[in-house]
């Protein structure tokens, strides 16, 4: 195992080192002195990103600084020609164009370099299971990509949907309606047009949407405790689509929903 170096910069690179690097087109063409300084800098930044992951097995297989710097150059270039290395033009024209701006730009790019290196070296065959929870205990790969329904849902579910749809829609707050409508249109909730219509920030919208979806799922589970997880998910998604349609068609056609919408 290679000794892990200190992240202290010491006599780090100067702006001139980076300018030489851009002119020379590659580390390999730079004079030895300048090259060594940049290799050390890039190697340390690579290490800093890896340390953030807090994975000892990754730290133990750290390549030498020269290879880390090489990984940076190889990954960032689209191809060998000068125009494939436009990221260098960006680095040298960032912000106030001073050394700090170049160095923080290298750190930003290094994140993807490290991610790619870890993905290739350690994650070639991800071990996620179809049933393993994904951040939230409520869903896994099977629930994110459910198999098509194998048979019809019980007829009581249709009756429940028919009897409760108006109540579900009328119980929604203004924010929840906007969120459901935005998602139905394929918009993200941080879209400025969505936030402006709702007069709320994305965090508030996410919370409103998430709570409403969870509430819908819970209502269905408590009304039909005998449904399998898969059936319950299909029914929730189907009900969600009906709510989306109800909001869009009933409101845009100004047809009465025979309900009053609850204001927040």
């Amino acid at each position, binding site marked *: 195992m290679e000794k892990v170096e200190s992240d202290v910069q010491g006599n780090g690179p100067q702006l001139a080192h980076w300018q030489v690097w851009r002119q020379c087109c590659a580390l390999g063409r730079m004079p030895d002195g300048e090259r060594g300084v940049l290799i050390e800098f890039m190697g340390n930044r690579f290490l800093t990103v890896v340390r953030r992951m807090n994975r000892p097995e990754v730290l133990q297989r750290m390549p030498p600084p020269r290879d880390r710097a090489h990984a940076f150059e190889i990954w960032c270039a689209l191809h060998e020609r000068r125009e494939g290395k436009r990221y260098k033009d960006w680095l040298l024209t*960032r912000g106030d164009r001073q050394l700090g701006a170049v160095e923080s730009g290298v750190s930003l790019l290094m994140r993807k370099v490290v991610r790619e290196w870890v993905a290739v070296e350690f*994650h070639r065959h*991800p071990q996620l299971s179809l049933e393993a929870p994904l951040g939230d205990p409520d869903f896994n790969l099977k629930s994110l*990509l459910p198999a098509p329904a194998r048979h019809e849902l019980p007829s009581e579910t249709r009756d429940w949907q028919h009897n409760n749809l108006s109540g579900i829609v009328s119980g929604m707050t203004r924010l929840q*309606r906007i969120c459901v409508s935005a998602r139905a249109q394929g918009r993200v909730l941080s879209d400025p047009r969505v936030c402006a219509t709702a007069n709320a920030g994305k965090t508030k919208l996410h919370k409103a949407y998430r709570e409403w979806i969870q509430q819908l799922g819970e209502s269905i589970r408590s009304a039909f405790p005998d449904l399998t997880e898969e059936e319950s998910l299909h029914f929730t998604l189907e009900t969600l689509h009906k709510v989306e349609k109800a909001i869009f068609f009933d409101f845009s056609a100004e047809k009465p929903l025979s309900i009053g919408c609850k204001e927040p």
Partner: protein
Amino acid sequence: MKAPETMEKQRKHLQRWLAEWQLDLSLGDPSGSAPELWRPRIDFSAEPGPAPGHIRLWPARSSGDEPCYGLLLSGGYGRWRVLPFSGFSLPATPGEWRLRREGPLRVLQIWNLREITGPGAATSWWAETVPTADLFPLEAYLTAWKAGEIPESTPPEQVGPPLIHPLDPRHEYLEMEFERVDRALGELEAAADPGPGLDLAAESPPEYPDP
């Protein structure tokens, strides 16, 4: 009905994408402090003018952002469509298209398409040109996707798996990517269509007397 082997491929695809996403999250936020907004003053006059198929690099407008790579397609009336590149190796949703298998620019975000003005397109560095032959299938898919269809001939690995669950973690990715591209290209955009429906959803429905 979806063939079982297609479902299996899509689940494996999603499994790999999610592993990459989780790896990305584990690397934390590189910027640390609150990002600072910039108005880059860069001379692009020596760059070749925008052309369909150009991969161009737009400088970031925030200290916390990487620059934004995008593919230019003609938008008509002097405007340009930009398909931003995702930083991931696989398409996340059916709205993403795998252009290549290797290198940092592999996946295009069709769903995140922006329409920008001519001057907006020119304030970027030209990096590469995608051959016209590679643009034909992309344009065909783009047209079909916008119409809400996915041609059956599309190989499952060419685009991402469907986004079904309303709380799927990919929604978080879409949000982040939308914001990233908005920060990079938002000011360059041509007048945006506000789109129907949202204002209506925000209104209270009129109250009608009981019959």
